[in-house]
């Protein structure tokens, strides 16, 4: 149990101002202010995961993104927390000691608690995944997953839960309509192929975050296979031509030897 996450968050925010955002910590906190919040409210996440090390990196990763995180390692305890405190989203492992993830979900829905739920599953648990969605899970993630992906899912789920507009992603003067699939830089419309669109969407969902080539490959191409990182480079170049060539501010940055990211604060 983490005491007073909100307080820590506040402290962090204060420190960022003081130190000018030069260290890694500060950068994380800088993002935290833009990402981990929805409106002015801090998003509260309940993570129920018995594997302590997984729970630990999830907590670290989500906190770095500005979320307020509470972790439980036991199904029954997790269920009690979920019913007794106000969370914005719950991240549920399926295999748990005590009550398993699906039972928690079922019990929540039986008690008409509309807490958005993201399930963590092993890939082999195909049936459980489907059962989870039928029981009213909002989304699922397959282990091993990227924090960045979990963050994106949490955002989508909380937006949906609060009825906020979900269809538009904006980074600086770049905007993307997920429904009409229109992309605009300022007032200029940009034509993208389906792959380019998915790649840009992926970058825009995690602005400021460094994404490795393999990570991009896995998410955009959904390949469980290494087609060579060359593919990512070529598509990034194409995307740059369309998105950045005409603009004074280049949004797509190369992080040398690591990967790419979208400039956090253009």
């Amino acid at each position: 149990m983490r005491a007073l996450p909100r307080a820590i968050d506040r402290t962090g925010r204060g420190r960022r101002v003081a130190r000018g955002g030069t260290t890694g910590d500060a950068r994380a906190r800088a993002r935290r202010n833009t990402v981990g919040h929805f409106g002015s409210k801090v998003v509260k996440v309940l993570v129920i995961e018995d594997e302590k090390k997984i729970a630990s990196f999830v907590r670290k990763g989500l906190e770095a993104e500005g979320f307020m995180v509470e972790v439980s390692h036991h199904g029954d305890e997790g269920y009690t927390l979920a019913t007794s405190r106000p969370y914005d989203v719950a991240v549920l492992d399926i295999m748990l000691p005590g009550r398993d993830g699906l039972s928690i979900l079922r019990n929540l829905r039986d008690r008409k608690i509309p807490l958005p739920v993201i399930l963590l599953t092993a890939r082999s648990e195909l049936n459980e995944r489907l059962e989870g969605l039928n029981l009213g899970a909002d989304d699922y993630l397959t282990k091993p997953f990227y924090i960045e992906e979990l963050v994106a899912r949490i955002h989508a789920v909380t937006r949906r839960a609060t009825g906020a507009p979900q269809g538009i992603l904006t980074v600086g003067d770049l905007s993307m309509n997920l429904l009409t699939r229109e992309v605009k830089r300022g007032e200029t419309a940009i034509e993208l192929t389906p792959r380019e669109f998915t790649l840009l969407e992926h970058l825009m969902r995690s602005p400021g975050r460094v994404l490795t080539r393999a990570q991009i490959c896995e998410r955009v191409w959904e390949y469980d296979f290494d087609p060579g990182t060359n593919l990512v480079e070529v598509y990034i170049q194409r995307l740059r031509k369309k998105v950045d060539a005409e603009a004074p501010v280049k949004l797509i940055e190369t992080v040398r030897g690591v990967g790419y990211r979208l400039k956090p604060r253009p």
Partner: protein
Amino acid sequence: MKPVSFRLRIALLSALISGLVLGGFGVATWYLLHRQKVEAVDTEIRGLGARHPGWLANRGSFDRLQSSIEFIFGEEHKGRILLLVRDAQGQTLYTSPAWPDGLDPNQIDCSLEDDPAASNEAATNPPSLPRGPPWRPGGGGGRGGMGRGLGMGGGGTPGLFTKIPRFFTVRAGDSAWRLGILGNNEVRLVVGLNFDQVQAELNRMRNIFAVTLPLALLLVGSGGWLVAGRALRPLNTISAMAEGVTAQGLDKRIPASGSDVEITRLVRVLNGMMDRLEASFRQATRFSADASHELKTPLAVMQGELENALQAAEPGSAAQQVFGNLLEETQRLKRITRGLLLLSQADAGQLKLAIEDVDFSAELEGLIEDARVLAADSNLAFDVRIEPRVRVQADRSLLQMALLNLLSNAVKYNEPGGAVAVTLEAGDAQARLTVCNSGPGVPPSDQARVFERFYRADPTRTRAQDGLGLGLSLAREILHAHRGRLVLAESRPGRTRFEVTLPL
């Protein structure tokens, strides 16, 4: 050696053995019969000599003797009995009129050994004259009964002939004659009986045997075939069942229905073997499934921690690059783990498919777009012919994995300036995809091994060039799970063609 059906072998073997037995039996029978017939004729000749001693008593009336003999045997036997009388000096006293032309009486060797018993007897008992009339009234009949009325006189005729009689068969013209030379110190009597009838009888028997033997062998052979078929039926059932035992159906067992001790034992032994096989197979697949499952958590932890560290590190710093590299390697580990899990599931026949309606054509177009990007460096020419809107029921992500593997191989194992050709067409019941490239090809000795796990075309190739050694075998398992097929249709320098079929 080409394997011959056991059933056929049993049939042939039983026919062969019966053939040998029957043949041997036939030959022995024929030989005994032949000897018996000859002896009967010889006895008859002796009898004739003994019953008609007129040639000794009445030297002048050989003609009468002849005619009386003919009277006994009937008209039709005229010419079937030969008589030749010769004195001790070799002077021929009488030759019957039927004496064949081809037989020179002078050529007949009439020398005889003394019979010690007969000469003793002759000394004590002077030759007696006929004991009874030479024929019985009405007994003649002449219906070919050569032995009739003669047998009792056979064997010996003590006193009359003091020499040991000699018998032999001669051929004269078309006929065979059995000649008997009887005699005492003064006279030699040569009595001949026509042997044709006996010979014909023996020949007939031989012919009957020659016809019936193959028939009998055929019967025995087909009997053997039927019996062997019956005996082997449980074996056929067992092999049919054993064929049904595949990786997917390892739990199948042969029902122990037969009442035969041997078969029951065989079934028990086979089932026991299958139990052990199943146990070790399950253990092996469970092991790799468990292993990849167990690897998931540490991988998830590594990936998560590395990702956090990467995000927290100074952009472009050495530390961040290290984290990035480690993250990519984690990715590779994840893929291998996933591949192993899929393969172990496929081995156990439990590859889980999230089946949906997939636009094969569109999926393929997208993958080819990526393949073109991958091929940009080596300047490959693409020849793509895709029939639009081919839809299949498939697990989209697994199908994509299999197809991408084929396409990226076609790009990877190509030569600069080479070509990649992809065709997709929908037949009646299946979609057919071919992926050709102009690479150096797989050497013939290795073609059967390209689908093996961790197979590498060239052991010296680096990993970067070769990707995962699981790709092709995984692709094939995925297509099998979709009731499809993946084969290396041809491979020679300049042309390698993979073929995929998927049911529509």
